[in-house]
């Protein structure tokens, strides 16, 4: 076991204590931007890993990418070939962008994404996969020459998972104060669930992947603060967000 200077560890712990006490997403995000800036990151995104046929916007928790980069990313549908979210599906541990394997020859699209990112000073990044039973999300940070020393990585890992978790909790609390809050696609997936269709069957009906359907169910459950598919369907029906 190597002895690691605990400076960043303590910073990370202080940060987690501070955001646990914060009451708004805006306040959490401004503290987040400040602490990652001190580690050399100027951009971030927190989102679900989009399944086939799903847009990045549908899975977004927080978007701190440069506007132009995000517009290009969405317009060109880079999420379909970006090796970073793809790698999240196959690991439980955080990783640096530069550690993600792809072959520029057999996978030229992946190479395009990684190269274009550099136009926005997103030279290197750090990505933390977030795994739930039915869905995979990620917190991805990027900068010109960020600090990726072992102690910084541990701190970034801690900061990322607790920020993700805190934002979800705050979003859930905010959502419970509204009436209609499901997206059209989430309502559609729930309507099929209400008619007894499994995720696989719904995927076939809507022409999207099963993982995509499961993601929407998970998001609907989060928004309605329910505990499983049945209670999500029941709550959505009672709230008038779906009909049979």
């Amino acid at each position, binding site marked *: 076991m190597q*002895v690691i200077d*605990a400076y960043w560890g303590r910073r990370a712990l202080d940060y987690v204590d501070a955001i646990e006490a914060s009451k708004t997403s805006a306040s959490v995000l401004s503290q987040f931007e400040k602490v990652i800036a001190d580690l050399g990151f100027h951009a971030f995104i927190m989102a679900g890993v989009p399944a086939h046929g799903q847009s990045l916007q549908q899975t977004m928790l927080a978007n701190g990418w440069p506007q132009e980069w995000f517009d290009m990313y969405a317009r060109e549908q880079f999420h379909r070939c970006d090796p970073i979210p793809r790698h999240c599906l196959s690991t*439980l*541990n955080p990783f640096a962008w530069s550690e993600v394997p792809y072959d520029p020859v057999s996978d030229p699209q992946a190479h395009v994404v990684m190269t274009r990112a550099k136009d926005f000073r997103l030279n290197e990044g750090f990505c933390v996969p977030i795994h739930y039973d039915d869905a995979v999300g990620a917190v991805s940070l990027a900068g010109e020459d960020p600090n990726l020393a072992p102690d910084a990585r541990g701190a970034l*890992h801690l900061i990322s998972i607790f920020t993700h978790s805190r934002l979800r909790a705050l979003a859930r609390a905010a959502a419970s104060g509204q009436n209609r809050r499901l997206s059209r696609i989430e309502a559609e997936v729930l309507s099929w669930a209400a008619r007894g269709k499994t995720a696989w069957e719904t995927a076939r009906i809507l022409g999207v992947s099963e993982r995509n359907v499961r993601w929407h169910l998970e998001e609907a459950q989060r928004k309605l603060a329910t*505990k499983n598919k049945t*209670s999500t369907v029941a709550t959505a029906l009672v709230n008038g967000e779906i009909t049979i």
Partner: protein
Amino acid sequence: MPEIHVVRKDNRSLYEKYFDRYHRLRHDIYVKQRKWMALDRPDGREIDQFDTEDAVYLFCIDNGQLIGSMRAVPTLLPTLMSEIFPYLNLRGPIRRPDVYELSRVFVVPEWRGEHAGPRIDMLLLTAIMEYGISIGLTGFSIVLETWWLPRFEKCGWRARPLGVPHMMDGMSVLAVLVDCDDTTWKSQCTQIGLTRPTLTWRGLESVNRQALPDIFLHLPRVAQQAQ
């Protein structure tokens, strides 16, 4: 539904027949599957220095078969965190009568995921909270694989980090302190659909236990308004 039994020194004799399988299961899961080779022993039974007579075990038993378990060790005695992973805790050692450390949490492969009844991992997490409230604990320290944390958040456990994640044998691990209180237990019961306590205290009738709060299953908010 599988039963969760409290097993400790005062009633261990009633459960002695389970311990051989218990330690073999630990070997199967931690040495053979997870490849924690430091725990390897030639007799195929995984036992460590924290399996003392002060350790408390929850045994999840279905039809006489052990299908899952969890271990709790008093933090007044040596624990994984204090002896093996002290560098995971930057906030200072935890040695308190009201905090136990959880370890060796597992469910046998055939009982993982969805099946009839609550998920066994959720059942164990709910049961240990019930145990903690019953004997007056306020928290649990845990060294866990970091990727588990979002699941804790989802099931209502409030985990405060004690340090930063470290890579250990290719897996990120972290030390946390989890609140043990009525609110967490009630929220978990609601989530997995339990309306009463789950623990079996066979042979522990003389243990002084604190009262548990009532559990109510809540109707959806809008349904209540419609009534």
